[in-house]
Each structure stands twice: as C-alpha cells, then as structure tokens.
C-alpha cells in the first residue's frame, strides 16, 4: 500500500520569505499523481499544485513550485514571497493512475507566516 510521510509537523516563515515543505512517499507504481493541498481554518481542502509522475518537469503555479525527485520518492513544495494568507495546514497526497481512485494523504504540516 502507498504511504505518504510529512516529517515536519510545523514550520514558520517571515512574510515575503521563501519556505520549503517536505514530503516523501512510498509506492511500487511507476505512474501516479502527487498533490499539495492547503487546508485553512474553514476546513475546506484547496488544491495548491499537482504533479504527474511521468513528467520530468517540475510543476509551478505562480508563487508555488515543487521539487519532484522520482527516484528518491520526494515531493517538496516551495512557497516564494510568503503571504499572510498562506498560513494553513498543508497536506501532501498521492493517487494512483490505475486501480484505486482514492487519495492517500500525509499527516499534514502547519505553516505559520509571521508579519
């Protein structure tokens, strides 16, 4: 079974600075999706960025980018120019491209942004 590990339960960053959130996963599959979701106090999970494993190019979405290392099974999220609104829980998630449709989530990491 696939597992997702987020080893840092909490991080903080100064406004306008850059922060990197780490995630590792375990799978025997060669093709899959990886996601970073953000969960503010409203509880609604919001997609931040998505990576398809067959693509070598790292995904980027405005201030958010990933460092996808397939051989190392590592998927870190970099947030540039951090804003107060970035403060939230961040979850890394895995989904197979075949078979199971379910997302497997890590335990999450709480990001605090200091003004």
């Amino acid at each position: 079974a696939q597992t997702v590990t987020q080893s840092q339960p909490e991080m903080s960053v100064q406004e306008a600075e850059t922060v990197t959130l780490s995630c590792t996963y375990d799978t025997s599959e060669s093709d899959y999706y990886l996601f970073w979701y953000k969960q503010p106090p409203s509880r609604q999970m919001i997609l931040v960025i998505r990576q398809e494993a067959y693509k070598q190019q790292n995904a980027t979405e405005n201030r958010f980018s990933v460092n996808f290392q397939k051989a190392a099974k590592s998927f870190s999220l970099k947030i540039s120019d951090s804003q107060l609104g970035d403060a939230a829980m961040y979850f890394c998630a895995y989904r197979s491209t075949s078979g199971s449709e379910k997302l497997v989530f890590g335990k999450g990491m709480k990001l605090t942004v200091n003004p």
Partner: protein
Amino acid sequence: GAGVSQTPSNKVTEKGKYVELRCDPISGHTALYWYRQSLGQGPEFLIYFQGTGAADDSGLPNDRFFAVRPEGSVSTLKIQRTERGDSAVYLCASRPGTGNTGELFFGEGSRLTVL
C-alpha cells in the same frame, strides 16, 4: 451549485445515537468521495461513488458506517450506534467524470462530536 456543500456543519450527538451527514456535490460531477479527518491527522478515505454505485468502499471502518447516493448526485453518510471514536471531521469531495486530472473539489466538512 458553485461548490461542494455539506450539512450539518457541526453535529453533536450522544454515544449510541444514529447520525446522517449530507453532501451535495458540484453540479455535473459524477464522482463523489467521503473522507474522515481525525484531530491532527490527514484525511482518510472512506468510500468512493461513480454515479449511483459505490465503486470502492474499502475505507469504511465497520458495518456501522454506510453511504448512499441514490440519484447520482446528493450523498448521505450514515453512522449507526455512534461511538466516541467516531468524532472527527467528515469531508466530502467530488470531481468531473471526464478529464480526470485527479483533482478533487472538497466541501468544508461536517464536524461530528460524539459525547
């Protein structure tokens, strides 16, 4: 609707009672998921519907949990003989049936507290 709607937002019940949680997905989304998020944890998969049928119910913890989606739109998660360990946020998510990028659209969840 504009987003995934879940009711009630909060539910407090007594041990042994029956509870229903409702999810109204984004209009036209054929796939619907239920997740459970315990305090300090990432969401855990419960069940996935494609249309009216449960395509994967492998995450339901025991036979006290049941979910239906009779017309392929609204879904109800039913919990019988509630236990204190059932206390959690229950998240619902949906996605379109075609153009499957793996992204799920989540509601704000229903927080269940069992006293």
